[in-house]
């Protein structure tokens, strides 16, 4: 399981050779910068109604994407909604990984009761369609950005834990681990230095995918009116306006930009995830992709 040693190029160098993935990474960073820097630079106010422009104003030089039902600038709301959506997605993925990696290691390395109960817990969580569990929990604990991050993050660990668990099972009896154990390495040292580096590769590829899924879940929740609520915006809650058929058909500038933002971000994350997979696991290169 040490495929990188034999290859002189580092995983990062291999990632850089994948032009599509690099472009997507660049675009995603650009998007993050725009979303966080543009509102203060352009002096955009997401929560101020422009009464002169009126309600549902079409795009104009003053309001590039028009205004919403109470006269708020839609570009400002799109960017600030982007901050919320992106932060929720990325931090939920980080929480899932921070939880899934140690739990997967524990289950795979200690085995026995740890293995049985942790994997049964994963079975239990995975028996629920995730959106249903998220919907119930968020509705019960109250819809706020923090609660959504926590619920998505805490429920997302199972996939990552299973990946780490499966790899740990194969690594734990490899000769180098047995050798280190025979040399008297403590369990913590062994897990950190010998097992962990050899099992995390698939986790790196699944983090962008998890972030993408979290963004999709958050936007579905907000679209259904159970997630981010006004005056705060997220991409999903902006699209909610299109539940009204007049908005849907005659004011496409209100809901198409946030939809495109979601699609763009999620696809970028998916391509980055694929790129990381290819970079970290040279064996997968054999399949034409």
């Amino acid at each position, binding site marked *: 399981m040490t495929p990188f040693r034999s290859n002189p190029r580092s995983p990062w160098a291999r990632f850089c050779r994948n032009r599509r993935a690099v472009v997507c990474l660049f675009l995603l960073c650009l998007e993050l910068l725009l979303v966080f820097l543009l509102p203060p630079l352009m002096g955009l106010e997401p929560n101020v109604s422009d009464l002169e422009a009126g309600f549902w104003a079409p795009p104009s030089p003053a309001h590039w994407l028009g205004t919403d039902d109470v006269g708020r600038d839609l570009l400002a709301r799109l960017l600030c909604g982007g901050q919320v959506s992106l932060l929720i997605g990325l931090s939920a993925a980080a929480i899932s990984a921070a939880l899934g990696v140690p739990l997967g290691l524990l289950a795979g390395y200690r085995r026995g009761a740890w293995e049985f109960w942790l994997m049964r817990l994963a079975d239990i969580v995975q028996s629920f*369609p995730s959106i*249903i569990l998220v919907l119930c929990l968020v509705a019960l604990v109250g819809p706020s950005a923090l609660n959504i991050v926590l619920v998505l993050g805490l429920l997302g660990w199972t996939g990552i834990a299973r990946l780490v668990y499966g790899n740990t099972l194969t690594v734990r009896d490899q000769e180098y681990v047995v050798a280190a154990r025979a040399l008297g390495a403590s369990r913590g040292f062994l897990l950190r230095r010998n097992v962990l580096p050899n099992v995390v590769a698939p986790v790196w590829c699944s983090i962008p995918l998890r972030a993408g899924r979290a963004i999709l879940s958050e936007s579905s929740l907000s679209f259904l009116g159970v997630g981010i609520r006004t005056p705060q915006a997220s991409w999903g809650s902006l*699209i909610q306006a299109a539940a009204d058929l007049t908005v849907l058909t005659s004011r496409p500038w209100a809901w198409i930009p946030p939809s495109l933002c979601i699609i763009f971000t999620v696809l970028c994350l998916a391509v980055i995830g694929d790129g990381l997979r290819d970079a970290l696991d040279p064996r997968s290169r054999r399949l034409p992709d």
Partner: protein
Amino acid sequence: MGRYIRSRLITAIPVFFGITLLVFLMVNLAPGTITDLMGEGAANEADRAALEASLGLDQPLPLRYAGWLAGLFQGDLGQSYFYNRPVSRLIVQRVGPSLLLTGSGVALAVAAALPLGVLAAWKPRSVWDRLASFLSLLSFGVPGFVLCLGGIALFAVTLGWLPTHGMYAAGTFTSLGDLLRHLVLPAGVVCLSSLGELVKQTRSACLESLGQDYILTARAKGLTDGAVMVRHAFRGSLVPVLTTILSHIPHILGGSVVVEQIFGWPGMGSLLFSAISQRDYPLVMGVTVVVALGVLLTNLLLDLVYGLADPRVRYGKE
């Protein structure tokens, strides 16, 4: 085989109790009880206590869990607060439409994904391969509700071909054509959102089995490419493809909550959604538990079918 079945059943038991316990705790530990809603206005402490006692909410948690579980085994999921009718009867009414929607969506997706996946594996970098990767990106990246909105905007409002809402035009069943017209858009969305993953898995499973020795043998026998592809490579990849289809069921069910809600489809998803917004706890518990147990049962059956169908699975797991 007996040992295999037994070991699968034994692992399913803690999962079953875990599912029920999770649903129970989730709903019962949530802040705010039904008395806050029902007793709004005229409630004094005595009324609240009486209401809680009449709903059995004054009993300790373990006792309530045991009572709920005992009811579950008898098919009694309690009384809905909002509809004031048995939860089980409400669910039974909604199961049919839900199965119809997800079933037709998934059937469409399978019918389209299998040939496309095989073609994409057969001819890498062809139009089919490109179409396959485009579809898998589409269904991963485009949220279901955007697909719904796009479908409504295009086919229902602009072109006026299809209805935007509901299951029947007249409120009840009038003709099969009417039902089908209402079914097309939601089932199309369900199909599109599960299509990509299926195509991707079919393609990679076929590629995987193309590298096996038995393909070489089949080629050496002089079979045509098509015969090798369909009768050997595709058959060899049926098990992973079946796994993908069935492991996708929770996703599809989850996605159909959104689809049902948008299209006003009278299924379990929209029932759950309205139950959540009305804080109808017995109904929320009932629907969630039925869905999760359905998934558990599907997985269990799947394991058993594998054990019967593929001897390697059986020996591998023991």
